[in-house]
């Protein structure tokens, strides 16, 4: 019996109390409506304001946010902290350990690992951003329309997205990128958009269906609102939150996918500078020169972690039920 009380529903029943506290003004509706100092005191707070307020008090948001900001800055201007060229290598220094001016040591080609790690950020970040932007736009439009209109359109789209889901991403990557011949930022991003959109489409479809069933959408219909108004004014703003969260976390996974593809030799190819390429080259020498692997792999992990942390913080802020 006692176990019964540990079920989630009862936890919710107990936790419902603070969340359910009505936020009210001292103004009674029965009282004559008149301006008052207190009426002006409580500012209008939209849910986005609330979410921002929540985010701004989370240390996790600042840590991940600063990291991501730093990444973006160095991927635009890598010269800021690593002025040398990542392609200026000296075979004589092959696999050398850290020395003064070269804190991360040298790789097999005698290139400075520090410079390559810094310059490698650009490939990762741009693939991540392009892929995420494409996936989000394509996925939310297709999924959102499927959820809103339902019927045949929905059935066909759901089947198509099932098919894409069924494709193993690595196998798909190997096949696609060898067919298009030429792994660069654009092709890798296109591949990810092609295979990634069903994930967002599903989320968007679910979110739109949930929003569609809300009474306020019915109320808008009852007022005579058209499809465009209902989609843009009522459904989209309310379906956006889960998409933002998933997209943020997906960004991290696309970065690691880019590294994986480059590691496998089908993604970016030398002379492009990418963490995946460096990890691939370092992996054979892991016993002799672990520093070659450690730095690019570490940079990759920290980057992915930063995006996942940001996604987590955003989810907490956007989901009022978790408050």
């Amino acid at each position, binding site marked *: 019996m006692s176990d019964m009380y540990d079920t989630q529903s009862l936890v919710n029943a107990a936790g419902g109390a603070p969340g359910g506290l*009505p*936020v*009210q*003004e001292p*103004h009674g*509706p*029965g009282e004559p*409506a*008149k*301006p*008052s100092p207190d*009426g*002006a005191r*409580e500012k*209008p*707070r*939209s*849910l*986005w304001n609330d979410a921002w307020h929540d985010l701004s008090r989370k240390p996790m948001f600042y840590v991940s946010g600063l990291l991501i900001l730093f990444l973006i800055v160095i991927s635009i201007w890598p010269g800021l902290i690593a002025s040398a060229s990542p392609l200026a290598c000296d075979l004589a220094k092959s696999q050398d350990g850290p020395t003064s001016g070269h804190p991360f040591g040298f790789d097999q080609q005698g290139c400075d690992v520090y410079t390559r790690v810094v310059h490698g950020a650009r490939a990762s970040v741009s693939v991540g951003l392009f892929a995420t932007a494409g996936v989000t736009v394509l996925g939310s439009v297709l999924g959102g329309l499927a959820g809103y209109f339902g019927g045949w359109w929905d*059935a066909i789209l759901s*089947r198509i997205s099932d098919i894409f889901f069924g494709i193993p991403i690595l196998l798909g990557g190997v096949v696609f990128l060898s067919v298009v011949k030429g792994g660069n930022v654009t092709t890798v991003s296109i591949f990810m958009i092609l295979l990634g959109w069903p994930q967002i489409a599903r989320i968007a479809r679910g979110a739109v269906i949930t929003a569609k069933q*809300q*009474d*306020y959408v*019915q*109320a*808008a*219909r*009852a*007022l*005579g*609102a058209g499809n465009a*108004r209902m989609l843009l*004014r*009522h459904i989209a*703003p*309310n379906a956006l939150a889960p998409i933002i969260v998933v997209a943020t976390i997906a960004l991290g996974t696309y970065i690691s996918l880019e590294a994986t593809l480059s590691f496998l030799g089908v993604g970016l190819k030398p002379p492009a500078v990418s963490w995946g390429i460096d990890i691939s080259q370092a992996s054979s020498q892991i016993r002799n020169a672990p520093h070659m692997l450690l730095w690019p792999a570490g940079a990759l992990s920290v980057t992915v972690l930063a995006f996942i942390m940001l996604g987590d913080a955003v989810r907490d802020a956007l989901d009022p039920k978790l408050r």
Partner: protein
Amino acid sequence: MSEPILQVRNLVKHFPLTQGVLFKKQIGAVKAVDGISFDLYRGETLGIVGESGCGKSTVAKLLMNLEQATSGEVFYKGQDITKLSGRALKAVRRNIQMVFQDPYTSLNPRMTVGDIIGEPFDIHPEVAPKGSRRAKVEELLDVVGLNPEYINRYPHQFSGGQRQRIGIARGLALNPEIIICDEPVSALDVSVQAQVVNLMEKLQDEFDLSYVFIAHDLSIVRHISDRVGVMYLGRMAEIGTDAEIYEHPTHPYTQALLSAVPVPDPEAREHRERIILAGDVPSPANPPSGCRFRTRCWKAEDRCAEETPLLAVPTRFQGAGTPAEHESACHFAEEKDPVGSHAA
């Protein structure tokens, strides 16, 4: 109370039950509303009561054309609104509005109160010229008893009762003739319910509104309604004036329903005669043949399974001139003073 403003005739809504993913096959239907007819007169309040699953909320959606009727007609000024679409439907919607049950889900959380109440004017710009909208919205807030200064706030900054007032203001914006109220106070606290009921009565007088008031709280329905219809499993069991239904019910279901209402008087506890119905409401996907209520009725005979009772004044009461002379869909309609109804 002269001419009917809304005439509902044999309204039916069946929700298909389907199987299969891509090629859907219908395997049955939930008969949510199965042949309902009634009239709504100008300026009156028609209460519709019934338990969950009786189809009363579906009736509300059908009257609003938010659900497509399977068959039947809803005439508004001679026009069948179930057949309308596009521009014609939009025009009718100016005159028929709705107040929803849940004040938490019926307001878009990402819009300000001003945007919510002003949206009707965006959709029907002919009602209010652009410059006058803000003033209109403030006036509406004032009419429903809210501070017009709240215009820029968001719904979550209000309590349930205040939100319901916002919903009512939105319903009033286009100056409609009919408001369909689907359980408008059941989500509110007891002390706030009375405020909202009073507001709705005040607005009815002020704007000459006709209400269809759907609720399960029998005492509130009685207070606000001129006439009351009792629904059971997709059909109308009985309809009449409030006194006819509450004091002289002739349908066994109405009698049982009234007797089951807890009376807020502990003295009535001992000498109250309650009809406790056996079992549960059958599934609307597979309703009983003949009279829908027969499976729980203590009067049921073979005839009830074979012959569907029609909603009409029972023969024995025709021309009687007593309050029992009202429409009741029962083969064995008879009066039985429901003890305790006087306190309901």
